[in-house]
């Protein structure tokens, strides 16, 4: 792991987005049991996820320490099978770790029960999937309303907020369309609107452009870019270097471990994009 940029000032970079320094991150991930301060949206310590495949244990994550500060825009990269999705699912509270700590907004979620996790997913997390995961028979509007339904928001306010979210992704004229009446890019924008409608503290995206052509991918990346610029914490998995280059910080996974975690300039240099 490169320490080239340790000691960097992390906040207040004009025109650029905030990024935490390696030293700060190291400090927060190496104190087991300690509650991280609130500016750390995500802190994992020794996060492990193992799958028992009929006697044979698959170690998808073998001890991941990662700390992400509010407003950061982080790309997660790595070869197929390196554990990216597993890590995203853990961060997104869709899954629970075999071992290790996961703190979200200063709350230990790695020990939570099913229904508590559901509340966290509803309130704190917006998830964008590669395969969109929209309800096929529901309109765009209704799809966007869903998180608010489970948040117990009254119908009127739900509609209003869902409309606003769709307007924010320029889909106000497609609200009553079903997913099969929308293009891939439009579907993914519906998914983004849905992920953001409940104002989550983090926006997670697992290969959001994986099913899109390159023009549409660029369009979707612009949406994430502007969200990050407006202060939304974004964590995105991708295996395309040029897409990762949009992020300020790049975490590379290899065999269930973090191989590098650095500013994108370092990453660019590494992959020859600079």
């Amino acid at each position, binding site marked *: 792991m490169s320490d080239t940029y340790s000691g960097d000032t992390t906040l207040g970079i004009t025109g650029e987005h905030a990024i935490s320094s390696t030293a700060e991150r190291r400090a927060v991930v190496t104190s087991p049991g300690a509650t991280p301060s609130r500016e750390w949206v995500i802190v994992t310590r020794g996060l492990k996820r193992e799958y028992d495949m009929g006697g044979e244990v698959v170690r998808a994550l073998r001890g991941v320490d990662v700390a992400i500060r509010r407003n950061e825009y982080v790309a997660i990269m790595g070869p197929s099978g390196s554990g990216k999705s597993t890590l995203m*699912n853990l961060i*997104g509270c*869709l*899954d629970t770790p075999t071992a290790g700590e996961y703190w979200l907004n200063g709350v230990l979620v790695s020990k939570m029960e*099913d*229904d508590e996790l*559901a*509340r966290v*997913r*509803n*309130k704190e997390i917006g*998830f964008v*999937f590669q395969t969109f*995961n*929209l*309800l096929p*028979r529901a309109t765009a509007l209704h799809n966007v309303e*869903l*998180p608010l*339904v*489970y*948040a*117990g928001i009254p119908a009127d306010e739900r509609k209003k907020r869902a409309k606003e979210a769709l307007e924010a992704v320029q889909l106000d004229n497609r609200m009553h369309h079903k997913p099969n009446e929308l293009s891939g890019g439009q579907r993914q924008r519906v998914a983004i609107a*849905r992920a953001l409608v*409940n104002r989550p503290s983090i926006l997670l995206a697992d290969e959001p452009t994986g099913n899109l052509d390159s023009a549409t991918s660029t369009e979707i990346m612009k949406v994430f870019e502007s969200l990050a610029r407006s202060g939304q914490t974004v964590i995105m998995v991708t295996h395309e270097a040029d897409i990762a280059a949009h992020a300020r910080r790049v975490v590379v996974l290899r065999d269930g471990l973090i191989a590098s975690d650095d500013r994108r300039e370092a990453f660019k240099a590494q992959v020859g994009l600079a």
Partner: protein
Amino acid sequence: MPFFEAIKLALSQIRVQKLKSFFTLLGVMIGVMFLIAVVSIVEGMSRYMTEEFAGRILGVNQFTLRRSPNMQFGDVSEETWRAWARRPRIYPPEAKQVRDALPSGTHAAIENINFLTAESVFARPRQVMSVGTEPEYFDIKKYRLTSGRAFSEQEVLRGSPVVVIGVDVAEHFFPNLDPLGRELRIVGQPFQVIGVLEKQGSLFGFSLDRFAIAPYTSPIGNHINPRGDIDGLVVQAMDEVVLGDAMEETRGVMRSIRRLQPSDPDNFELETSAGALSFFAQLKGKLVVFGTALPAIGLIVGALVIMNIMLVAVAERTREIGIRKALGARRRDIMRQFLVEAATLSLFGAAIGIVLGAAMAKLIAATTPLPAAVALWSVIAALAVGAGVGIVAGIYPANRAARMDPILALRQE
């Protein structure tokens, strides 16, 4: 997820899969249909019994002094039969003594009944229910005449051959004619028609208008009871209290006439509608139990089909469940979604079953002598049963859905 949201979702699910929903609901539909039909007919019969049969035929606040019971409910032993046959007959003088002892305001009339052959010059002979009685009988039965008059005490004393007839008798023997003053021969004896009764309708398909009423002392008397005894003395009291008094009086008079010792049992019968009603109440209970056993099987089959369909629905919608969970649905939200769906589905079937069952009951009532009345309680019960079947059938599939792992669910194609 709010309840209302779950119902909307369930209805849209039914709308999307109309045909499948229909077949799913067949069991519940048929079960509820028969439930409603059976209960309606039992209820109709029971209402008929209490209001029509007990009220009109047996009479409210009425009893009849008889030698032995006219109506036997349940099993009567050979021995009882023989004891009844040994009882002395009742003759008009005894009836008179009883009548004299009755509280004032009560009506009493001798009632002798038999089917006798009647004929007129206009029509073929026919069996007619013939009643030999006294003028007060018309008060007791609340009979109204559409034309003519009832007979008088004098005519009873004289044994006049006069007769008051029901509309069926009038129409049969005097088609398109005014029967008043005309001759009706009963068992070969000429009777003069002096009155026609208002239409009475029918009971279990039997016409209540096919009868003739004449003084018990008239020539039909000999044919109904050749020995000169009477079938019964009908007594009508004003209310329940007077009825009790009248029965006690009657019992006292009869026992003293017959010189019965205190230890002797009555050798006569005071028959009221109470016996009939309690018998019908018992019968109704049995009919309800028996009649609901069959629909219950339909409901069980219906529940199994719904459970199966819901399991399929849960499997087919695994990804949807995953999406909902990823967006924050808790176990209870998913549970509720599928329970409400199963219950709505089943309620829908029950509602159709209620309509069909009511229609079936009405159809049966219209085409057979059986009466039918759709009771509100049976509709409410059917709806409750419908929802209950759905919920019971939905628990297992809903629970399976609620416990799904979100990631595995999302991975499903």
